[in-house]
């Protein structure tokens, strides 16, 4: 964590800012309007990267949880919590931008298409994870429970995917994109990736500071 700090503190905010500006510029000025769907299709350049980031968050939670359970690293535990919070934010962004797009195109805010169902359930799993953290308190045990939930949650994804796809199926699949669109998507993804990393980093710093303060307070109580 220490070796990464100078880079994360100095470079990431600037990188995120520049990439975000570039992404906004490309979405609104550079990329051509889609022929069938019109201007509303531009939300897609935020929607898809946000979806990817929420999945990334999920896998980060699982990876960090496994590392915490089997190697006992405290930082990994904090990292899992930070990733769950950031992932939850992106997951919410996916649902909101998706709804904004679906209303003019499909005529409804929400429908039970496989991918929508999947995202909704992932959102509830994230919510359960965070609730466990909040309601459970700050003990070592709760950290372990949360890690178990993080791992089981990821194991759930493949079956969830199968059952939801068998269940019903109108989400558009991207088959071919104009080069301008592909470039815009790429820049947006990069910008979101920077944002993801930066938020994760900020939250991780905050959480480890909080853990340190709690430890200091315990020691102060023990001394007095």
């Amino acid at each position, binding site marked *: 964590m220490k070796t990464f700090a100078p880079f994360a503190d100095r470079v990431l905010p600037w990188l995120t800012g520049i990439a975000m500006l570039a992404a906004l510029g490309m979405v609104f000025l550079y990329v051509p309007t889609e022929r069938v769907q019109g201007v509303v299709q531009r939300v897609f350049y935020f929607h898809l990267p946000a979806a990817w980031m929420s999945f990334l968050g999920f896998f980060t939670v699982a990876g960090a949880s496994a590392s915490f359970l089997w190697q006992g690293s405290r930082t990994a535990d904090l990292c899992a919590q930070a990733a769950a919070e950031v992932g939850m934010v992106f997951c919410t962004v996916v649902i909101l931008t998706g709804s904004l797009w679906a209303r003019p195109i499909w005529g409804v805010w929400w429908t039970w298409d496989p991918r929508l169902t999947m995202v909704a359930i992932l959102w509830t*799993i994230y919510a*359960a994870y965070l609730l466990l953290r909040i*309601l459970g308190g700050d003990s070592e045990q*709760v950290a372990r*429970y949360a890690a178990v939930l993080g791992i089981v949650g990821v*194991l*759930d994804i493949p079956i*969830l995917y199968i059952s939801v796809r068998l269940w019903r199926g109108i989400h558009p699949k991207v088959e071919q994109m104009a080069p301008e669109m592909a470039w815009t998507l790429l820049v947006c993804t990069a910008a979101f990736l920077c944002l993801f990393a930066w938020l994760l980093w900020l939250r991780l710093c905050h959480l480890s500071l909080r853990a340190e303060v709690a430890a200091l307070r315990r020691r102060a109580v023990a001394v007095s």
Partner: protein
Amino acid sequence: MWALLWKDIRLELRTKERMASLFVLALLIVLVFVFALSPERLRSPDVSAALLWVALVFAGMLSLQRAFLVEQERGCFSGVLLCPFDAGTVFLAKFAGNVLFLTLVQVLVTPLTLVFLEVQLSWSLLVLPLVVLLGIIGFSAMGTLFAAMAVRTRAREVLLPVLLLPLLTPLLIAAVKVTSAVLAGAAWPGVWLRVLLAFDVLFVITGWLIFSQVVQE
């Protein structure tokens, strides 16, 4: 494992609390639905299937909580953990106990529900016990793992359903689909049975492997 399972069974035989409360709860849920929905609606196989599973899930939550609360209340669970076998065995015993109790409750509740809902009898109903059993196995595997966690936190009543329900979604989708197909008198619903089976296998193994992390003191 058998000793632990036998202990839970004997406890239940003496008090009969858990079975009685589960049975009444499941029945009440079915009745609430019967009162709430119009008779035409109730005849649709989709509704009946959903109803059966809602009742089972709620009764199951209660059963899971009882399974660990009995021991948690007087600190007996530490005693169970001190026994000379690994945590995976404890998991299997608790899991088997849950499957057993829920199955016994469903043996009574499912036929009653079918009668209340005026389901047409047909040969395809013979698959129903298998479906219910597969559902109970998956539910108990996942549930045992999370109930062990939830009873040791502050907000145990809230946490168990919040943790369990999202993860159970694939199981419930599959279970309701098979059940409604069976009730409608369809032929062998192979795909969904396979999904159920995959879920069961995956979560029994996961629970067995990961349970030691949950109960560590």
